[in-house]
């Protein structure tokens, strides 16, 4: 009995692997919020200040990358039907390397220390190399790739581009010779990070999870098979135009027009997703859906503001459009989507592993809590409202940094503390019930 019952877990890593990514990530969110409180308006006024770069990477690497890599190690077997090779080893290596690397990068920026930056480049380089290699082996082994797998492959390519550029930029800061012009490649780096990696992964995964979990119609077939490809090729063409514009300034406006065209593709995805969600047959509104609605709605709104502002520069002269877009993408799109996902995945994994063990040992005396007993709606909804308030104040702080960056920081800190607290409660409950199970099994064997 024991062997067979554990089969369904065989492909998935032990729960401690994803959990450590998920429990560390909110700590980086808290650190980012504390930076906003400590440094105040500085972090929102110049794109290039070391504080801004440190804050950006606390969120993109510390929160987004940790959650997304941890989640992928877990859900690849489910979404793609294939296990990540050596998943325990990969998790054991990637988690500390990304954590230490992110801390090193942030320390390097803030202290202006090349030693820290060198450490960061080595650790992040190694961590991402291992992760990308393992995920690539799994994704390219899939024999009958569906649209989700195709989207995930493209997202992984985009991550590789992002990381290679990030490493070159970081190596430049660390005093190692790299050959490229920082300002130019920074924009390429962050575009591949946000529009490439984050958005392509979102799109690929949505094709599968939105219809299934919310019981909606499927995405239109042409969107599923063409959109991710077109976006990836579109980003590659934009990159060439953008880089070529260094020597041929007349190309600069073309690269801008082209980027705007690509944004239409993302807007189409968001609009279709919202339409599908309106047609969903599963009627109850849960907190994950509330987070997803915010995240998906922010995509068209922020892209439209940015596109209009770029194409008609006189209309919005006083606003720093790039900063506004960056804040929207990180705080308004990526963070809520992942926050919502965590509230499904962490309670589910806890239940799944425990119930599986219960069946394997036939130990029915211990009651396994269901997902909502692991995480009551009350707690997750409370965090949602705090997050929403934090988002609004953070967006407003772009317009009034002197007044609002610190209050935004306080609210964000609270939101990440509550998120971390909620996830930790689930993990502790898991440990408690797991202990009860072990005890009951031991008793059973004695008796």
């Amino acid at each position, binding site marked *: 009995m024991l062997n*067979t*019952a554990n*089969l*369904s877990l*065989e492909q998935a890593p032990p729960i401690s692997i994803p959990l450590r990514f998920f429990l560390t990530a909110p700590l980086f969110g808290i650190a980012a919020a504390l930076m906003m409180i400590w440094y105040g308006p500085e972090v929102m006024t110049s794109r290039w200040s070391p504080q801004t770069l440190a804050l950006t990477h606390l969120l993109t690497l510390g929160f987004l990358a940790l959650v997304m890599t941890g989640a992928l190690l877990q859900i690849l*077997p*489910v*979404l*793609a*039907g294939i296990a990540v090779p050596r998943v325990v080893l990969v998790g054991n290596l990637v988690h500390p390397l990304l954590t230490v690397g992110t801390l090193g990068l942030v320390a390097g920026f803030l202290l202006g220390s090349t030693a820290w930056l060198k450490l960061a480049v080595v650790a992040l380089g190694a961590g991402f190399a291992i992760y990308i290699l393992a995920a690539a082996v799994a994704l390219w082994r899939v024999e*009958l790739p*569906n649209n989700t797998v195709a989207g995930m492959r493209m997202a992984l390519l985009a991550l590789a581009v992002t990381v290679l550029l990030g490493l070159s930029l970081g190596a430049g800061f660390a005093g190692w010779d790299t050959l490229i012009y920082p300002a130019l490649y920074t924009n390429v780096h962050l575009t591949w990070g946000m529009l490439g990696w984050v958005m392509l992964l979102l799109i690929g995964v949505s094709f*599968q*999870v939105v219809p*299934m*979990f919310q*019981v909606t119609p499927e995405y239109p077939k042409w969107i599923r098979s063409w959109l991710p490809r077109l976006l990836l090729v579109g980003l590659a063409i934009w990159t060439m135009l953008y880089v070529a514009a260094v020597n041929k300034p007349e190309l600069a406006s073309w690269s801008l027009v082209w980027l705007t065209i690509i944004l239409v593709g993302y807007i189409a995805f968001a609009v279709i997703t919202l339409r599908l969600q309106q047609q969903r*047959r*599963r*009627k*109850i509104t*849960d907190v994950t859906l509330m987070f997803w609605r915010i995240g998906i709605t922010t995509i068209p709104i922020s892209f439209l503001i940015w596109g209009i502002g770029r194409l008609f520069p006189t209309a919005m002269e006083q606003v720093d459009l790039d900063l506004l877009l960056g804040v929207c993408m990180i705080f308004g799109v990526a963070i809520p989507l992942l926050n919502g996902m965590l509230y*499904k995945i962490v309670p*589910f994994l806890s*239940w*799944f592993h425990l*119930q*599986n063990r219960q*069946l394997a040992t036939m130990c029915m005396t211990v009651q396994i809590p*269901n*997902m*909502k*007993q692991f995480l009551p709606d009350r707690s997750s909804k409370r965090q949602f409202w705090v997050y929403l308030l934090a988002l609004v104040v953070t967006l407003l702080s772009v317009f009034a940094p002197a007044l609002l960056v610190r209050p935004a920081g306080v609210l964000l800190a609270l939101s990440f503390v509550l998120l971390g607290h909620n996830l930790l409660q689930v993990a502790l409950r898991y440990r408690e019930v797991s202990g009860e199970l072990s005890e009951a099994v031991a008793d059973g064997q004695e008796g």
Partner: protein
Amino acid sequence: MARITDTMAGDHRRCDLLFAEAEASVSDSNWDAGTAQFNEFHSAMEHHFSMEEGVLFPTFEEASGMTMGPTQMMRVEHTQMRQLFSDMAQAVEKQDRDAYLGLSETLMMIMQQHNMKEEQMLYPMTDRTFGGGADEVIEKMNAV
């Protein structure tokens, strides 16, 4: 070439709709409708499991020689879901809304990840293994 995949995925979607209706009624504390809809959903699921455990899995195991592979994993997950069904049936009986909704949320997660594995991996494997014989297997399943 995707006869089994299409047929069985279609049945998954049918069960999803029944699930959603029952959940909505219970969420409104409409127990008359909710009880009937839960029962309908429950029997649709049991029927689906019987088609798999009674026909599809054994036929596939015989044809492919894989008895401890994916089909075994799917059976284990059926057991996990069956335990949730029986807990949900109790919640319906006691008209315990919160218990039902916590269980239905949990069921939805395991059910969908289970469906994904089947639709991504197992059903396409059966289609490839059976080839032209798929129609015959479907007929046998329809007789369940």
